[in-house]
């Protein structure tokens, strides 16, 4: 039942993005409570004796009052994680064969992730790009950061064509602190180029996750008749036969996905394929898994 709230088609009917994020995350967390494996929230971990240099904010003064010994209180979720979301808003992201575009789907994921990060007191930031950086919200844990991020995600509109090289060069300037970098894109580029452009993001000790968003009709197009297709990014048109779409195209896209996964793995990038007709929970699950791994 809760899974239903992660269905993009259901989420599309919710107009407010913060409500979408809350619905997704709450639904997702409710599902997690039944799981013994994963933990989430500020769980108490241990007391540790104060050593010089420790932050006095974490001293448990109640224990000190009782015992006159200085102990620090440690929590499980306490890390210095930073989440940076790179949201691709190129024109190709506006494509859909149903009601939810790839951009909508990416918005839902982004909103859900920043909501989850804010719950975890992680610093979260956002970079919106197409062939250039369109918007940037610096990672922060300040009050009101969540609203700023959601607002920026909401404002993200489909732009022009995708060019990874240029914006990713700028991204490196924004990454001063190690954390998790999530890239939401349809990755219409050669896998080598993608891997080559994104790989430097790891150099600062970042965990990079590639969420590859594709519409089901992009993976397995179904044309009954010859059709004239027009590229939404550069407006070039091409006659396509159903036979080609059925055979060669599918083989090519499958090869592309495989290549991209391989290249990403080779470059130490986390790669997650997302079908926009499917629920969003794999994205959240992957994010939590990576975060868990970083502790």
């Amino acid at each position, binding site marked *: 039942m809760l899974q239903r709230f992660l269905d993009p088609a259901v989420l599309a009917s919710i107009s407010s993005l913060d409500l979408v994020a809350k619905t997704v995350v709450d639904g997702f967390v409710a599902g997690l409570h039944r799981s013994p494996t994963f933990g989430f929230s500020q769980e108490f971990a241990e007391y540790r004796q104060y050593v010089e240099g420790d932050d006095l904010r974490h001293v448990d003064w109640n224990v000190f009052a009782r015992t006159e010994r200085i102990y620090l209180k440690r929590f499980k979720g306490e890390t210095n994680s930073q989440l940076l979301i790179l949201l691709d808003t190129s024109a190709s992201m506006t494509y859909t064969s149903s009601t939810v575009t790839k951009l909508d789907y990416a918005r839902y994921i982004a909103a859900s992730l920043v909501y989850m990060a804010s719950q975890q007191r992680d610093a979260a930031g956002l970079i919106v790009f197409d062939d250039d950086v369109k918007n940037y919200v610096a990672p922060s844990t300040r009050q009101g950061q969540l609203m700023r991020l959601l607002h920026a995600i909401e404002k993200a509109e489909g732009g022009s064509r995708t060019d990874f090289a240029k914006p990713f060069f700028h991204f490196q300037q924004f990454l001063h602190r190690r954390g998790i970098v999530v890239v939401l894109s349809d990755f219409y580029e050669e896998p080598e180029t993608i891997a080559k452009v994104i790989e430097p993001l790891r150099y600062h000790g970042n965990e990079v996750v590639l969420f590859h968003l594709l519409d089901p009709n992009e993976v397995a197009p179904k044309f009954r008749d*010859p059709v*004239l*297709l*027009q*590229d*939404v990014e550069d407006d070039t048109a091409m*006659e396509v*036969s159903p*036979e080609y779409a059925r055979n060669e195209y599918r083989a090519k*896209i499958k090869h592309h996905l495989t290549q991209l996964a391989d290249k990403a793995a080779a470059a130490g990038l986390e790669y997650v394929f997302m079908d926009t007709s499917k629920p969003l929970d794999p994205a959240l699950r992957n994010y939590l898994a990576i975060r868990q791994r970083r502790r």
Partner: protein
Amino acid sequence: MGFLAPWFLAGAVAVGLPIYVHLLRQYRQKPVRFSSLMFFERRTQSSIKHRRLKYLLLFALRCAFIALLALAFARPYIHSATIAKANGGRTMLFGIDNSFSMRQGDRLSRAKEEARAEIGKMREEDRGQVVTFGGPAKLVTEMTQDKGALLAAVGAIEPGDDTSSYAEISRVIRSTAESLKADVEAHIFTDDQQSSWPAAFADARLDDGTKLTVHPVADKAIPNWTVENVDAPRRVFDTKKVRTVATIAGYNTQDGTRKVTLIANGKAIESKEVKVPAGGRAAVEFLTLDVPYGLTRCEVRIDGADAFPQDDHWYFSVERADPKPALLVHGDNDSASPLYVRTALESFTDAAFTLDSQSTQQATNANVSKYAFVILSDAGPLPAKLEESLDSYVRAGGDIFVTLGRNATPGRKVPVAGLLITSLHTISPDSEPVQTATRIDNSYPAFGKGENWDGVQIFQYATVQAPEGPDTRIAARLANGLPLFIDRKVGEGHVMIFASAFDNFANNLPLQPVWLPFLEQTTHEMGGVGSARGNYKVGSYVDLRTAKERNVPVTIIGPGDKRLLSLAESAKATTFQFPSEGFFDIRRDNGREELAAVNADRRESDFTVLSADTLKSWKNTGIASRSEAGASSSRDKRDDNAELWFYALVLLAILALAESYIGNRHITAGTGKEAA
């Protein structure tokens, strides 16, 4: 195959519409936006396939629909010759003339022989039919490929006494061609009599494609004498006053003298010689006809001494009877009308009636039923008993004639008829014009001979209220529009009312020439003398029953004492057609007997042959029409050819249904499943 309205074929260019919809429009389809064409390739194969017709079947149906619609409007037809060819072989018609003239010599047997020879030439795939046209055309066989049946039918043809007509055989050929939608090859076996040729050439025309071959059994005229006609009274009341006139005619003959004999019941009564001019006519008069009482078979015969003795006689029948009594009731003050009527009746050649004239008072106790008819000549008010007797007499079928003169009383009704006399008017010549008879109905028996009534002046007349209706007929009126002659049906009989009197005071009718024929026709009609005919031509009809004799069985005994009616016909037949020459005794169970003398039409005695030009023109009607077929009107074409528009329409309906079904299926599939 051709088209009656070929310009409609231009509508076939509308086939371009589905071509545009399926080919051109589809090719310039609206592009479908797709996220990236990174993995697509432009391929020639795809382009070619794209140009391929999308909905081949639908496209074909739509094209066929439009083409067929144009075709249907163009009204295609298949020429009858094509159909004939499709049926295989020729359609042949063998017309054999078995008219009266074919009895001459061996004409009929030669005609039959030649017909057999032609039938023998028929191919296996040919079909033929035998027709006789010695009178009304008779289809002797069905249209068949069985030569044996055709030969047997030809062998069974007997000579007839009727008249042949080339118009009749042409009509049969035309109707055969039209009904079978085929070109007919007609073979006519005849003696080429000119008299068989119709008055209007168009009556003998043949249809397109008809091939006519005339097989003449006579090539030149032969001289022939004949008794053309005999004028004799139907009934004989006084043998001393009978006048019989015979007309002797010669066709293609030299002048000569012929011996003419009057024969009654096989016994020669009188013979005379008559000189007949070359190729002309002469009349012979016999002034006595001494025949016994009853029906007598009479004949006028000539010593023909020619090649055709079958027409050297003329049959006629007479009936010897006593004159019938007629009653004339007149007013006491009227002595003129009995005189005029009696004189007129006695002057008639047949003297069929004897007049018994009585005054009104004298006739009080008269037994009117014994009279052939009764005339109430200005009789005035009748004694009640006499009026009663007359009423019964008329209702039983008798006829009375009422004249209204000075004794007519305004306010009283005409006896038996019951029509009111409203006034009696006497004209003052100084102050008003004399009345005349106008609007005379010549279809009424009393005025049937169309005599001139212009000289008749009427000075006194009664006004009778006579609304016209089914029982009341006004046969003549005065100049002022008032009825002059009224026929009122009462029961089974009639009351005839003359709105003036038969004297020289009320009018001058008895002094005018029209008086005798008027009275003769009127009295003959009333007395039932003029109603029966004695002489008929072969092929003519006789009425077997009057309205009163509806349930009376009739027997007809023809030549050779043969009974000619079956039991059913004897009880129900209303007419009978005389099939041959001779005497036909028509006997009714109510005792009424009639002896009909039937003679062949004497046009058959003229053996003048048809000119070669006429024959050629006749043959050419079919051939000429065929050569002009291209220029003939659409109407002609339509008549002669099998049109296909109906089949085209049926096919159109089927195509429309199929197009709707398949089109609907494509729409459903397109909206439901088609990506993009």
